[in-house]
């Protein structure tokens, strides 16, 4: 029978199935960070259990780490204890950890692929909803809660019900200047933040195939913002080229065997999906969110929508609350909205390609005087190193951006990087929820190039117009 990519990944990992269809699913790679793991390790200890397969685990602190000088450690004592707890747990159980002083440290969803710890065909879990990122490799990757983290530590398995299959096909080619972030925001705008609930989404179509691995990771990263726990892209030559020669990737004869298998990781031509959504790539413009849910998104040349035009009463009420929180009037052209801060980073957009795209816009320009802070936070120590070799740090610094150390940073403001109440931010992160970047902070999600364009202009602007004005 013809199978989807998701069917194939699922079937390969089922250890056993209950009568009601609940499966015991084997987990190949377990990524761990400091926020969602302490209670899981504590549970393991209390029950006198050990990790089932310690070599499947890669741990890294990312949410709490400072992005400024780290030589003095973490100033906030509560954050410090959480990071030290991860260090101690990894030491006690003999697990691999890239600690805060390791050049390989970074955001867990950046370092997994960067190290080759994420491979095609794997099941990958992490106590973090953006684990869907790793699906870009033709892997089944999804976020789990802390109880499930403990379950995987203790048993190397998870109890799961199979999701339904959805195909999101982005057909044709995007216009110049349109990035993976614009594509995925447009998808979420189309299907809504609950559109993928209960589904595993495969992203396909020419526009997805044309993306680099970095771009595919950006798209899969935000599958969860469409409600889908897992997003994925079929394996092709782009995938295999990216994976080869990475530290944790197989080599030699085993690599040859692996590649032979990886080449089967795509949906069969006759496979059927429970739901199929088509988007016309050419119609996608640079995207900017206006509200407090990622589905509240419009093209940069559009106006903030009017709740009075919404027929669904619950939705209209949600829009009114969002406008009030965001301090916006319906009908305002989004490109007239001024920003206070700019954040380029997060597991969505902090890879080398993202930094290059932002630097191209920043080059030879200056951060607008009206912008209080524009910061660039690379996704890992190795991304930072690479960017510095390419001179991107100088481009940013010359333009007036701050160049920081790697971590999650202002995506969720668990460290010192945050918005103050009322401040408006152009952010390359993934969530514009109320208070996400700091209580009362107002987040607009955009691509790295659009964030850089907002930084130099002081307000949202179509990056293509800005670049053609040279």
């Amino acid at each position: 029978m013809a199978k989807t990519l998701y069917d194939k990944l699922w079937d390969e990992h089922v250890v056993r199935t209950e009568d009601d269809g609940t499966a015991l699913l084997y987990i190949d790679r377990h990524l761990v960070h400091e926020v969602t793991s302490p209670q899981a390790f504590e549970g393991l200890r209390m029950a006198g259990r050990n990790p089932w397969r310690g070599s499947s685990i890669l741990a890294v602190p990312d949410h709490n780490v400072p992005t400024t000088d780290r030589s003095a450690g973490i100033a906030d004592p509560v954050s410090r204890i959480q990071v030290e707890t991860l260090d101690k747990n990894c030491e006690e159980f003999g697990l691999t950890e890239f600690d805060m002083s390791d050049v390989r440290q970074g955001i867990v969803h950046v370092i997994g692929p960067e190290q080759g710890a994420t491979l095609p065909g794997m099941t990958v879990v992490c106590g973090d909803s953006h684990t869907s990122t790793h699906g870009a490799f033709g892997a089944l990757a999804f976020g789990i809660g802390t109880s499930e983290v403990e379950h995987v530590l203790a048993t190397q398995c998870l109890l799961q019900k199979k999701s339904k299959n959805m195909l999101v096909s982005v057909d044709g080619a995007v216009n110049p200047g349109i990035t993976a972030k614009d594509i995925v925001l447009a998808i979420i705008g189309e299907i809504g933040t609950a559109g993928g609930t209960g589904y595993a989404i495969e992203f396909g179509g020419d526009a997805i195939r044309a993306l680099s691995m970095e771009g595919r990771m950006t798209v899969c990263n935000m599958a969860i913002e469409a409600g889908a726990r897992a997003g994925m892209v079929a394996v092709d030559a782009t995938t295999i080229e990216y994976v080869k020669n990475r530290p944790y990737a197989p080599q030699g004869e085993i690599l040859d065997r692996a590649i032979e298998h990886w080449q089967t990781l795509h949906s069969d031509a006759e496979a059927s999906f429970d739901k199929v959504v088509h988007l016309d790539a050419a119609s996608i413009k640079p995207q900017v969110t206006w509200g407090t849910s990622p589905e509240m998104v419009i093209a940069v040349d559009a106006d903030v929508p009017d709740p009075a035009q919404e027929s669904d009463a619950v939705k209209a009420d949600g829009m009114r609350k969002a406008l009030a929180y965001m301090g916006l009037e319906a009908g305002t052209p989004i490109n007239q909205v001024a920003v206070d801060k700019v954040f380029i980073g997060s597991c969505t957009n902090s890879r080398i390609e993202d930094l290059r795209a932002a630097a191209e816009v920043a080059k030879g320009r200056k951060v607008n005087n009206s912008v209080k802070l524009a910061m660039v936070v690379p996704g890992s120590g190795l991304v930072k190193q690479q960017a510095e070799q390419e001179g991107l740090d100088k481009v940013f610094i010359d333009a007036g951006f701050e160049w920081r150390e790697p971590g999650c940073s202002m995506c969720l403001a668990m460290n010192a990087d945050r918005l103050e109440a009322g401040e408006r931010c152009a952010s390359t992160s993934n969530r514009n929820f109320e208070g996400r970047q700091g209580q009362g902070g107002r987040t607009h999600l955009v691509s790295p190039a659009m964030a850089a364009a907002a930084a130099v202009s002081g307000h949202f602007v179509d990056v293509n117009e800005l670049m053609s004005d040279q």
Partner: protein
Amino acid sequence: MQAFTTHTGIVAPLDRPNVDTDAIIPKQYLKSIKRSGFGPNAFDDWRYLDEGAPDIDNATRRINPDFVLNQPPYDKSTILLARENFGCGSSREHAVWALTDFGFRAVIAPSFADIFFNNSFKNGLLPIALDASVVDKLFALVEHNSGIEFTVDLQAQTVTAGDESYAFAIDDFKKHCLLNGLDDIGLTLQHAEAIKAYEQNRQQTAPWLFPGK
């Protein structure tokens, strides 16, 4: 885990869609390395007028009188009535811990985000999905009968509200675990031999998945 059989309690209406886990428990409280004590900070940004932090005594903070859970009798509610896509966003189980620590035993909504839904079952919190039209009716019922109690019967899979009773669906396995308060790690370890056999087979057929072995 606390077992769930039947529960009767006051229903609090939280009338907004897409309530995300950042709203249920803001990031600054995720720095805790414990599972308990999150209740006073459930819905923190909506519940208080000033900003909280782990080292601030909540008793000294300014309460938002307009927020439903600050208004009697809802401050004693144990069933939360919510709108679609409840619990979306971050995988933080702290959101569930905050709800249970506040005193909630069940959440009724038209739909739930997948990760939140799973996390709930691990902590004895029952998420009940009912048709949007039924949820509309329940909101109207609560609005006209402040302090009304609903009864949830997990064995029978029903919610009784006023004169009506509504059936809800649940997986047999989840129901069994919740009714008996079972620790699913213990259950899974009963299949340790099957896991080992799977693993040994995969080491032969897909050795690249076992680096460092």
